[in-house]
């Protein structure tokens, strides 16, 4: 691909962008949020039409104007934003458009067999007949990967495939990638996780502001060089100062929280100025716990105490009134009002603050607050009146973070806050969380990235299968966390039995 241009209303997403992929190569595409990575790949896979430039396949210029054409040319893509049909089963999603038929009738048995075979080859335990909407995002992501694999393409594009995956799944994915590579498949790999780039890719192409910056071999280029190519300057990666919060007053106490098999008797406390990390494997129940505390889901038992007082939280509204904020892990479904503009999304949880007499809104105040947040979090958007759905994935995540910062809660629960966020912004967010803690705010960070948990937390709560299997001090080792995260036979259950 050479000389690719692409503009959207008010945004020049690509200008003279360039990319090249060899067979049997894993080629990482890097860049900050909004650099144009997804857009470039959408052009390659026939989702967008380019404004200018040439696309060549095996040396021959090709015109790709529809996803179908890309598929026929042997190009398939795993989109950054999940593109699944929620009401269909996993197997039905994978083979959409290519259903096996017999006498015109769908061969559902074969469909499920084929899907099961793909899952088996991925070492994935998943019923082909389960409806996609009942799956966690991680499992949904695995379905997307299975779908892309099922095309047996010569070119496979993966746009942040690991954003929602845990380490075990990532390892599995990398095994698959290595297998494909051996078969001569060319793979475009987009990710904001720097360690993965080193582990998996052969070459790295960096983009900035829609332009081509350079291509370097992955093995002999230091990470810092790649990062400075991305952000156009060197990032100082200063060690974080974690002020001690051990004797600060209690902000939040959760006692014996229960719901079915997802949350089994979870108790912990959180002090003001403290960051409590939540680690665990996919499906450990961290999200469920957070949602139950926030009142987003029903509880079957347990008490919640805020600042030493027992509170009844029956809905998110109650939680917010008690000063609790929750940043959801699924921004598209639960975080963003995609039809509204950036300004209103940022103000959404704080509208009452901007409401004057007769319910009239202080639009100027909202604009000022939104623009402040846009600057603070370096959200890449043409203006605060841009529709939120038109932002790049990482910038959408920042908008949701800005919403909760503006709300000014005392207790903040961040569920996968850096999902899809670039390195530069990530360290900004780490700094921000630290600053918030320093202000005395109590923070829970749920993350599937252990380095992130280790870097941020004063203490680390580990969950496994709905139980809190232990709370570790800040400096604990990864091995210690993994041991608790896989502790199937818990001591707690025995204690209850006795």
């Amino acid at each position: 691909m050479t000389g690719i241009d692409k503009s959207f209303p008010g945004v020049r997403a690509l200008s003279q962008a360039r990319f090249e992929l060899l067979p049997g190569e894993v080629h990482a595409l890097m860049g900050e949020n909004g650099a144009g990575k997804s857009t470039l790949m959408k052009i390659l896979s026939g989702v967008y039409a380019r404004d200018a430039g040439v696309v060549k396949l095996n040396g021959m210029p090709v015109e790709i104007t529809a996803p179908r054409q890309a598929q026929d040319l042997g190009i398939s893509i795993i989109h950054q934003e999940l593109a699944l049909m929620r009401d269909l089963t996993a197997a039905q999603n994978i083979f959409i458009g290519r259903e096996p038929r017999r006498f015109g009738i769908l061969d559902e048995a074969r469909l499920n067999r084929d899907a099961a075979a793909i899952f088996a080859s991925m070492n994935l335990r998943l019923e082909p007949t389960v409806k996609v909407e009942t799956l966690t995002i991680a499992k949904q992501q695995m379905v997307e990967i299975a779908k892309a694999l099922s095309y047996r393409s010569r070119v496979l594009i993966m746009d942040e495939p690991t954003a929602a995956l845990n380490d075990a799944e990532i390892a599995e994915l990398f095994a698959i990638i290595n297998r494909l590579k051996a078969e001569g498949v060319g793979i475009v790999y987009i990710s904001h996780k720097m360690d993965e780039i080193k582990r998996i890719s052969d070459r790295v192409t960096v983009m900035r502001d829609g332009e081509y910056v350079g291509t370097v071999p992955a093995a002999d280029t230091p990470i810092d060089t790649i990062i400075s190519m991305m952000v156009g300057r060197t990032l100082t990666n200063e060690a974080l100062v974690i002020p001690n919060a051990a004797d600060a007053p209690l902000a939040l106490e959760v006692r014996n929280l229960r719901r079915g098999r997802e949350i089994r008797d979870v108790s912990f406390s959180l002090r003001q100025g403290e960051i409590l990390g939540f680690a665990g494997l996919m499906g450990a129940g961290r999200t469920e716990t957070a949602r139950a505390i926030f009142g987003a889901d029903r509880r079957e038992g347990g008490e919640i105490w805020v600042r030493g007082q027992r509170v009844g939280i029956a809905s998110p509204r109650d939680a917010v009134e008690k000063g609790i904020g929750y940043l959801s892990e699924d921004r598209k479904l639960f975080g963003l009002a995609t039809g509204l503009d950036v300004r209103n999304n940022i103000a959404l949880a704080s509208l009452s603050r901007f409401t004057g007499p007769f319910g009239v809104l202080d639009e100027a105040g909202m604009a000022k607050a939104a623009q402040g947040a846009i600057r603070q979090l370096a959200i890449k958007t043409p203006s605060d009146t841009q529709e939120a759905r038109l932002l790049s994935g990482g910038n959408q995540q920042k908008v949701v973070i800005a919403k909760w910062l503006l709300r000014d809660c005392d207790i903040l629960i961040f569920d996968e806050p850096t999902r899809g966020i670039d390195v530069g912004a990530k360290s900004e967010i780490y700094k921000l969380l630290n600053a918030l803690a320093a202000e005395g705010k109590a923070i829970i960070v749920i993350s599937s990235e252990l380095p992130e948990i280790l870097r941020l937390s004063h203490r680390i709560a580990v969950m496994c299968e709905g139980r809190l299997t232990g709370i570790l001090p800040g400096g604990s080792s990864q091995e210690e966390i993994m041991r608790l995260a896989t502790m199937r036979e818990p001591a707690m259950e025995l204690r209850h039995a006795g």
Partner: protein
Amino acid sequence: MTDTAAPAQKSGIRISGAFHRLLAFSGLIALVVVFSLASPNFMQTQNILAILQATSVNGVLAIAATLVIITGGIDLSVGTLMTFCAVIAGVILTYFGLPLPLGVLGAILAGTASGLVSGTVIAKLKVPPFIATLGMMLILKGLSLVISGTRPIYFNDTPGFTQISQGSIIGALVPALPIPNGVLILFAVALIAAFVLGKTALGRYTFALGSNEEAVRLSGVNVDRWKIAVYATAGSICGVAGLLIASRLNSAQPALGQGYELDAIAAVVIGGTSLSGGRGTVLGTLIGALIISVLANGLRILSVAQEWQTVVTGTIIILAVYADILRRRTL
């Protein structure tokens, strides 16, 4: 509208799928029980047949609407399209005097053609389904009047015609069960539609389109073609409804049909199909259509004053759907 926060399943208690499905009938069964107790005339064979007969046309229209609604669209033209197809049958059989099978074929093809037009306007011109089918509703209403010369076309010269809906093949074999053919046709259409939805590619894409049209497009599927196919299928089904109503009335009444779309859509939604697409069943729609006719019939049998009938109907429709919501929540 989102079920994502669906509560956890009660551990221990597991209710079998069959029982679960049976409960879906609960609103209908409750109505039947109440009316049976209230009036001895309700549970008579004659009256049950009258109810089924009254369901046949709306049921078939509702099945057509179900297909379209599952794609996330809407079809306001089902009622006037039904009439248009009846008029076409009238022209073929009475004005041209052609044989009965041609009339049947003509009515169904007219439905298909109209569905093709709606589908094309929606898929290719990107006109929202509400507007496209609203336009078609008016166009077909006008055309029915134009073609028929604004008067009913009678089928007196086609002796077998009234048998389509009013005859009883079963009754000829088992005289104790004089189920009218119209009712059989309703069930046949329901079976075929359920088969198409569950077992064919068309059905698969119907659900997929309603679930996430953009994802289907990104998967390389020719979204436009399948969408048009769904509207065309729904149109053909409206053609069957046209034959049913024409046969019942032994005439094509060109002015009839507007307003029928609301009853059809109501049956679909009462039956649990979501207007936002992606989910729905033909069985649910049948139950929805039956609830509507049982209500109307029962209230009449009880000689409830007509103005109160409307009030009661409105209330019970809300309660029936609310009961269904409660049932799903507690299971």
